[in-house]
């Protein structure tokens, strides 16, 4: 079918419109970067300049020298990496058992795990906080990390993927005397590297971005994670948008890089978490 000139013209216009829409959508992010590269006095001139002129890194050097942002960075990196690693390990073990082994109470356990999807942990924040206080975990890494491990999503996703692995693969290894751990880490995990990567990246981004729980469990400035800490910077500086935007750029750097490098994996992870494959 030959397209008419009119249809070609219309298609081009729609493409142009879509690209423009995309540009408008990322403009706030562009504006964040541009503002962070201006001197504070240049951010409040009218008319505003749409590119930094001259490029000025003073906002960055100022916040690195005058706020605990590097400290928060370390806190965020440590807690997010540990959360990612532990969530995956716990989920691997649990999902493998649910998928491959027989033990009493299995059906019941899976039901409880599925039911956990519906429970918003925010609703029970008061008893959870009390519990952490009794354990002496307020303002500790353990306090930030532990409740974030109680997420059933990775378990359910892994179970669905393990269910699809042909049984013969594991049975062959078992006949040769391999333990269940060898079967899991030697066969089931390598077959599912793709979803493991996707889950790892999505879990890392979610842990890095989590605001509510670290906000509740930390009140010592040195224990803040990045998303909690940067709210302090803003209230401390008042109207100093170059500095606020510089902290924002630094705070989003790791997740933005992770996304741009692993865009396809993030998409896979999002699909898996929403139950669409």
């Amino acid at each position, binding site marked *: 079918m030959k397209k008419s000139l009119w249809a070609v013209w219309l298609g081009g216009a*729609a*493409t142009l419109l879509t*690209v423009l*829409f*995309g540009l408008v959508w*990322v403009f*706030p*992010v562009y*504006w964040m970067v541009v*503002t962070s590269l201006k001197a504070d006095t240049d951010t*409040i001139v*009218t*008319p*505003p300049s749409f590119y930094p002129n001259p490029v000025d890194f003073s906002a960055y050097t100022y916040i690195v020298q005058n706020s605990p942002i590097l400290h928060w960075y370390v806190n965020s990196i440590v807690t997010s990496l540990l959360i990612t690693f532990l969530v995956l390990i*716990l989920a691997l*073990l*649990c999902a493998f*058992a649910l998928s491959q*082994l027989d033990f009493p109470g299995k059906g019941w*356990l899976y039901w409880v795990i599925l039911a*956990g999807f519906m*429970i*918003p*942990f*925010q*609703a*029970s*924040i*008061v*008893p*959870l906080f*009390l519990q952490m206080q009794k354990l002496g975990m307020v303002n500790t890494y353990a306090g930030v990390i*532990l409740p974030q*491990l*109680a997420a*059933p999503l990775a*378990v*359910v996703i892994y179970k669905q993927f393990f269910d699809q692995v042909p049984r013969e693969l594991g049975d062959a290894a078992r006949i040769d005397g391999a333990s269940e751990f060898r079967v899991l880490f030697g066969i089931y995990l390598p077959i599912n590297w793709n979803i493991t990567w996707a889950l790892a990246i999505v879990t890392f981004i979610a842990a890095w*971005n989590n605001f*509510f729980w670290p906000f509740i469990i930390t009140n010592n400035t040195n224990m803040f994670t*990045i*998303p*909690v800490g*940067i*709210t302090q910077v*803003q209230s401390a500086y008042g*109207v100093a*948008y170059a500095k*606020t935007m510089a902290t*924002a750029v630094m*705070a*989003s750097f790791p997740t*933005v890089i992770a*996304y*741009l490098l692993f865009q396809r994996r993030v*998409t896979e992870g*999002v*699909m898996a978490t929403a*139950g*669409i494959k």
Partner: protein
Amino acid sequence: MVAPFVVVYLWFLIYPSVQVLLMSFTNSDIAGRGNFVGLENYTRLLKDPLFWNALWNTLYFILLTVVPNTALGLIMAMMVIRLNWARRWVLAAFFLPNILPVSVVTNLWQWLLDQNFGIVNYLSKQSIGWFSDPVWAMPAVAVVTLWWTVGFNVLLFMAALQGVPDELYEAAALDGASSGQMFRYVTWPLVWPVTSLVLILQLIAQFKIFDQVYLLTSGGPFDKTTVILLLMYRSAFQQQEGGYSSTIGVVLLVIILVASFIQSRYLGRFRS
């Protein structure tokens, strides 16, 4: 092998969820000291104008976000899916805000919508203090939420649209269907399962709104943006009322459970 996960799961999710129900029948302070008071907290809640205000604000926020977020997600996905070389980049542009921490998003929008020096007021020649205006505060929070979260829905709709076989469009074209009819009779019915999923996921997520509101408006002006979780947070950590706060938690828990139950009942995510 299940033990490590099960211990963490019961300890940090299930146990607190049971505990919150028990605490809602006590007059505990935030250290957990208190006595059993029966249904006192619940009768107080029903008479508390702050609670009804928070519930109304939450529903208003839901009204402003759930359907617009879903509709915009579908429209954006339909725009992106027909692209060739630009598809990857435009999709990345739509999804990028989604991976920013919430406080980055709120700091950024406080700057964009700054009353005196914000780019939005400059370009539109307004001087509205978006987050401090009683009328505009909630819609402004909703717009920020939309910008931040719609990319997630775009991804889901992209997957759904890719599942629509090309032959159906070709057949419809041969029958002389207009593009409006194609959407109505081909795209829409096939995308509906994902649409309903997105709607209910949005509904559940927006009932739990806290972060953006707390960071952008702190519930103001005049409690116009105080939502359920914010009220719960305040009564727990500012008024030190562990028991009453737990009661608000239980109400939230019940609402979410009902919504999730509807989801699993009608959408059967894990039907096996």
